[in-house]
């Protein structure tokens, strides 16, 4: 796998390969990759989230990219469907996003 990408794996086993820079938006993922010690996550460049379902993880990845691009400005709003707000909130809380 390339150096500057990471693989995030959902509860159902779906794999999302995204830029490391985008994944670092999450404080939790950042800590995993920057803390000293030889974690398997750091070595393999992949993290499994057994608590986060596929659609939620997909939304989170979208947010990572949206955040990198737009969070500083006001030109775009990140839309959250009401149906997933609570699931997403819990996942975001876990990921410190």
């Amino acid at each position, binding site marked *: 796998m390339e150096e500057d990408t990471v693989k995030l794996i959902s509860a159902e086993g779906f794999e999302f390969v995204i830029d490391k820079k985008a994944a670092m938006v999450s404080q939790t993922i950042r800590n995993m990759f920057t803390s000293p010690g030889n974690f398997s996550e750091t070595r393999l460049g992949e993290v499994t989230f057994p608590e986060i379902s596929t659609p939620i993880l997909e939304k989170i990845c979208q947010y990572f990219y949206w*955040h990198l691009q737009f969070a500083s400005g006001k030109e775009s709003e990140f839309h959250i469907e009401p149906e997933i707000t609570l699931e997403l909130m819990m996942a975001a809380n876990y990921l410190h996003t």
Partner: protein
Amino acid sequence: MEEGGLVRRCIEAAAESAKSVEKWRRQRRTLERLPTQLADALFRLLHHRRLLYPSLLEIFQYCLEEVDFHGENCIDAEWMAYLGGFRYLRALNLAGCRGINNSVLWSITGMVSLKDLDISRCSKITDAGIEHILSISNLERLCISETRVTSKGIIRLSSLVNLRSLDLGGLPVTDQAIDSLKVLVQLEYLDLWGSEITNEGSLLFTRFPRLAHLNIAWTEVNCLPNLPSLIHLNMSNCSIHSIFQGHGPVKPSLSELLVHGATFADVDQAFSYLNIDHLSVLDLSSSAISDFNFLVRMRSLERLDLSSSLMTDYLITPVASTAFKLRDLNLSNTKITTQSMCILAGKVPNLEKLSLSESMIDDTSLQYLTLMPSLRTIDLSKTGIQGCTYAEGDRLAKIWSLPVLQNLDSLEILNLEGTRVRDDSLHPLGLLKGLKHLYLKSDFLSDVSFHTMSSLPDLRVLGFQGAVLTNNGLLSFRPPERLQVLDLRGCWLLSKDGISSFCGAFPQIKVKHESVQMLHLDQSQKLGSSKLKPDLTQCEPLGGHHFTDERIKYSREELMELTSSPPSDVLAGSLSLLPVALKKADDRPEA
């Protein structure tokens, strides 16, 4: 990067409207795994936006620890039935909820998690309601002030042995009731204002070994026994003979003593048993003391309230000699004059807040204020301050008095409401670059003063009540960058259109005016949100300020003149009145 960006967005989206609530609600029946702080934030936002309804509470039954519904009159048996199912509820505030009665309390009987219950001012609660509360055996804090509970019900409270804090304010608590409560040895806080206890009953307070806060305002108690653990005592409106007279070598090291409106047989005698080494807060407001020599010993005082007392220039000397540590001094509504300021000047190096509202001071006092170097807040409202004095023998040579305040480096808050300051004498205030809050209320002021305000870079709150401001003046006002609140209540010449276009141009500024509420009502009607209660939380409550259209005072011609007078002309006129030194400061480019 902002912390918790997505979490905050999710909470915001979840509480966007009743529709979005319905959508996520269908996904699950309870939020068992939701961390408490998230549940709490979501709950508060839903409550704030009035999106909560009884059956929605069910969702939160495993994740909320605190519920604050104070003042919500809609809370009734249905809401309470759901709250009774909250497994981990620790604190419940129902103060002032008019819908709460005895039978409704049945829902929360036996809640083992509940430690803090506030049902003050629920006027339908009687002794029968207390029977329900007795089953909540872990209660540590209970507030039942201003309910209809009698001494009989209060006696029953003795079975709540874990109580640390008990508020029985405004209830007819008798000596006998206190006698039965003496088993509550954990009590640290006891509020008995307006009760029926007497000197005899007050002897029973010695049975509470941990009692630190005691309020017996508006009672018949004259002599309070020695209570070594006490830190905070309120004996306002009592007729006091002695405090802490009695046995025991250890006297309480009181830090706060409030005796507002109290009368004393002999004040030196009354205070003679006090250990005043640590006394930092003393409230003597409205008391009938005419000899303040006892203050000399109180060298730790940080806050002293002498408002509406008999303090005069002749009595102020003891205050000056004890004032070294003072941070907050209130002399409002007393007969003190400039002479007192002269006596205090230089003696109060730590004074941060000084209130002289409704005192007899005048412009000559201001120079003494500059000898109080730590001052941050000065209240000069309703005094004879004019902003100028006249040179002796020459009624035409004005000397501006407000510029001396620029020597106070820490000055942040200045209140000049109800003084006779006019546009020209207000102008020098532009030199007070550190000012953050400025309060004005006067019908002598007009659009010209907007220019003065524009030159205050740090101004956050500007009160400009009752002034003769026009729409033109408001629209040409360049507010300081950091301005957050602009209070224009009572500025009767401003129209709804003028206010709304100003709000449009500066959305970050919260404008208070009689027409603002009308604007909000208009908007909510346009949105057709008749199903939801109108969200008035954005508007400031207007309190007792009724708006009267003062245009009836003026003739039609005078009115036309007022509304059409361009502000620049008035400014040019006033500039010619300014002394040379000040003109320079005003030579900044016009907008």
